[in-house]
């Protein structure tokens, strides 16, 4: 069934009208909370813009797997990103990025701060799951050929976001400053030494010295909480703007 036929059928069954009114009812409710305030809406047409944004065209998938599992991987990754952003900001209220205090502050967050175990748990598990969902999202786009023109530029921003996710995970792993994170970072940065010619200086630059030390912790912290998020925001905006402009590719 083509999308046009489906639209026709839904119109016939009166389903489309129902969907539209549901959106309208939700918007009506939020107008009561003052978000879509009358005089403001008159000038900015918020209601109209919101309705246009909420009516997002989605491809017509044929199978349950495509519809429920594969189509949502990108959205899942974004929800995890938002969770990580919120829980990460909360963790920053107590975390101390020094070699002497980092582990102690993480233990305090987990054992002393009210709900700290939950906030840290959310950050830990969302971080791990995001690596998985982003990888699956990339594989799905690769295998279904959705990266092909005209969406090739969006594929590039997606690959950048995949690399950023890995860098997030790598830099965040060091921050508790426990044995496993210390040695994982030692091994992880050691691999940069195998790059021909510039390897040794690259390793020295990433570590900020001959071995993993306070400077490494400080620059990984800066990377994790400021530099990577800023770059991610840029690529996320590009990624979303392009996919809304071009639409999600129809299945093969």
């Amino acid at each position, binding site marked *: 069934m083509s999308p046009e036929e489906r639209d026709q059928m839904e119109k016939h069954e009166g389903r489309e009208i129902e969907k539209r009114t549901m959106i309208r009812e939700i918007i009506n409710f939020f*107008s009561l909370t003052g978000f879509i305030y009358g005089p403001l809406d008159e000038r900015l047409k918020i209601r109209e813009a919101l309705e246009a944004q909420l009516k997002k065209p989605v491809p017509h998938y044929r199978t349950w797997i495509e519809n429920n599992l594969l189509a949502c991987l990108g959205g899942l990754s974004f929800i995890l990103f938002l969770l990580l952003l919120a829980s990460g900001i*909360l963790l920053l*209220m*107590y975390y101390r990025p020094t070699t002497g205090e980092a582990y102690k502050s993480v233990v305090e967050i987990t054992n002393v701060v009210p709900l700290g175990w939950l906030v840290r748990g959310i950050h830990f598990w969302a971080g791990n799951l995001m690596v998985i969902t982003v990888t699956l999202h990339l594989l799905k786009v690769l295998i279904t050929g959705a990266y092909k023109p005209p969406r090739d530029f969006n594929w590039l921003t997606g690959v950048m976001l995949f690399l950023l996710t890995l860098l997030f995970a790598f830099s965040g792993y060091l921050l508790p400053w426990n044995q496993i994170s210390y040695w994982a970072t030692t091994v992880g940065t050691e691999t940069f030494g195998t790059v021909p010619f510039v390897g040794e200086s690259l390793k020295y630059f990433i570590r900020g010295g001959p071995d993993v030390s306070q400077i490494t912790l400080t620059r990984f912290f800066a990377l994790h909480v400021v530099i990577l998020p800023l770059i991610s925001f840029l690529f996320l905006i590009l990624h979303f703007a392009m996919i809304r402009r071009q639409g999600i590719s129809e299945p093969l």
Partner: protein
Amino acid sequence: MKFTRRSLLSWLLGGGLLAFLGSLLWGVIRFISPPPELVEGGGGGKQTVIPLANLPAEHSMVVRHQGKLVVVVRQGKDVYALSAACTHLGCIVHWKDKGDPGMKMGDNLHCACHDAFFDLKTGKVMGGPAPLPLQTFPVTITSDQIVIGEA
């Protein structure tokens, strides 16, 4: 807006959403309120005890007494304890220890922020912008320790 059967559903949806956000906010507020175990010098008893050996003659130190900063000065045979927070804008007042370089301030406590002076014995304002005298605390000296506050 007309109240219909359908709008009941959106009220339920919106209400549920607001309840969810409220509970989220409650958790966040609990998280960011620092637990007393992590607050420096939080709580504390009625009295604060300092070993006499920690405070040499003609020297001063700042300690926490009942959660607040208190400057303790040992001058001659006497020990004075006053609130260390200047009554002007809350900077920590300073007493010139023996051998310290710097300005002449006699027996006065000095606030470096806006040049307020306080009398060491009474806490009275001797100069500067401070509107109120410093609070003084009773001090008991035993053979080997200084006790601030009343039992």
